């Protein structure tokens, strides 16, 4: 079970992350010249599209490896987890068929093309869902709502995370709690909160960072306790080495 990535909560939420390289190794941003990075990426996409058009299986694998995770995230965010794998595969097939059928006229813009396909897939799925609901409204009593629940393990993890955060929030002042509630629950902007609650930007950022750091700290302690318990359980049952 993993509640948090190690060290992620320690990062100051307000400092820009160090220039992490994208997974695309050829688009090396170390050069510090975005034009060069763009050119390298464009060359990579052109080469990939050419290989896909040649029905190169490794190119298909590379396309899937690079894009499937982003596509999955996008579809899940807009449509939920239901039938996600099918939707990802459908989208992937559409992209490949479009590439092979000449639908991608500018191979260097492969990323934008994939994004457009994914957006249209989301719209199409929503259209289908709305039409289905209309067709079945008169027959079903009570209507239907999509089941957006996660699997049981994810629900447990989510519950544990919110328990830890509730502990953090109960341990801070009412005012600080209100600030976090406004920002995360009511989605008010930083500017609005600072103006209405007479805060500086620095105070606001500091509060967010402290809360996040405390969250990470409690999470790590909980994980450590769980590991110790598991270890003791293994020793007690004699299953440990």
């Amino acid at each position, binding site marked *: 079970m993993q509640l948090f*990535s190690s060290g992620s909560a320690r990062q100051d939420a307000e400092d*820009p992350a160090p220039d992490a390289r*994208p997974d695309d190794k050829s688009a090396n941003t170390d050069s510090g010249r975005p034009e060069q990075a763009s050119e390298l990426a464009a060359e990579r996409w052109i080469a990939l599209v050419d290989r896909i058009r040649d029905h190169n299986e490794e190119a298909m694998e590379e396309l899937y490896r690079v894009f499937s995770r982003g596509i999955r995230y996008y579809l899940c965010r807009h449509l939920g987890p239901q039938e996600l794998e099918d939707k990802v595969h459908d989208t992937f097939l559409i992209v490949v068929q479009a590439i092979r059928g000449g639908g991608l006229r500018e191979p260097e813009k492969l990323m934008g093309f994939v994004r457009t396909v994914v957006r249209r897939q989301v719209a199409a799925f929503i259209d289908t869902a709305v039409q289905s609901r209309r067709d079945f409204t008169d027959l079903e009593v009570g209507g239907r709502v999509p089941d957006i629940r996660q699997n049981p393990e994810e629900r447990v993890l989510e519950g544990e995370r919110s328990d830890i955060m509730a502990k953090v929030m*109960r341990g801070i002042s009412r005012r600080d709690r209100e600030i976090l509630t*406004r920002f995360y629950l*009511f989605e008010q902007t930083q500017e609005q909160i600072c103006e209405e609650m007479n805060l500086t930007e620095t105070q606001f950022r500091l509060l967010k960072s402290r809360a996040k750091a405390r969250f990470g700290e409690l999470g790590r302690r909980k994980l450590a306790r769980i590991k110790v318990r598991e270890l003791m359980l293994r020793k007690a049952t004699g299953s440990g080495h």
Partner: protein
Amino acid sequence: MTGLSWEDDGAGESLMTRRSVQQCLSSKEIEDFLFDRLSGVTREVIEEHLLVCHKCLDRVEEEEKYFGAVRKAAARIQQEEFTAAVAGKPPVPGKLREWFGKFFGKGPAVWATVGLAGVLATVVLVQRQPGAKTEVEVALRLERGGAPEEPAAAAGRTMILTVDIQELPDAPVYRLDVVDGAGRLMASGEVAPQTGRLRWKVPRVLAAGAYWVRLRNPEEPLELLREYGLVVR
């Protein structure tokens, strides 16, 4: 096609301000992305970047989990405070209550003090509820043909829903239920129609999310007259 929020293509942004698709996301951009505050070319570029950059995707997913945890915790605490205030219990931690009892005993004085604190807490809670300073009226419409644009309302504000019921069977009152995406009942009420419309002040401030508003005749509770989608942002 649905009226999706990303259909604008950023006509207001120029090439000079265009963000590079190769550039990884800053913390602020991740926040804006998760709060759906991005639009135009910036949104396009960031979404393209997230299609291929697994490191940024890791960061976004991690932040999303954190956001979810804070939201759930904040909603839970809000509910607890509201329930405690309505029940007349003072919203103080357990240790403080012990300290109170230790110094003031358990006689009428402490109950009067606690009761007063409860009243004060109730008054303060109601008046200082963040974001509920103004009301927002949302008209629920029935769209025929094509995909409807779900009405959107602002999170953290008291909502007044209005519904046109001219095509529905007459009834002295109608019942309105608000359920969330998981089917949990969030608010419920009965409203008498006035000039062919229902006007209902939702008795609860809703957090951001997708909801369904269900309309029924209370005398026939099993029959759903209409169901409207409602997005709160």
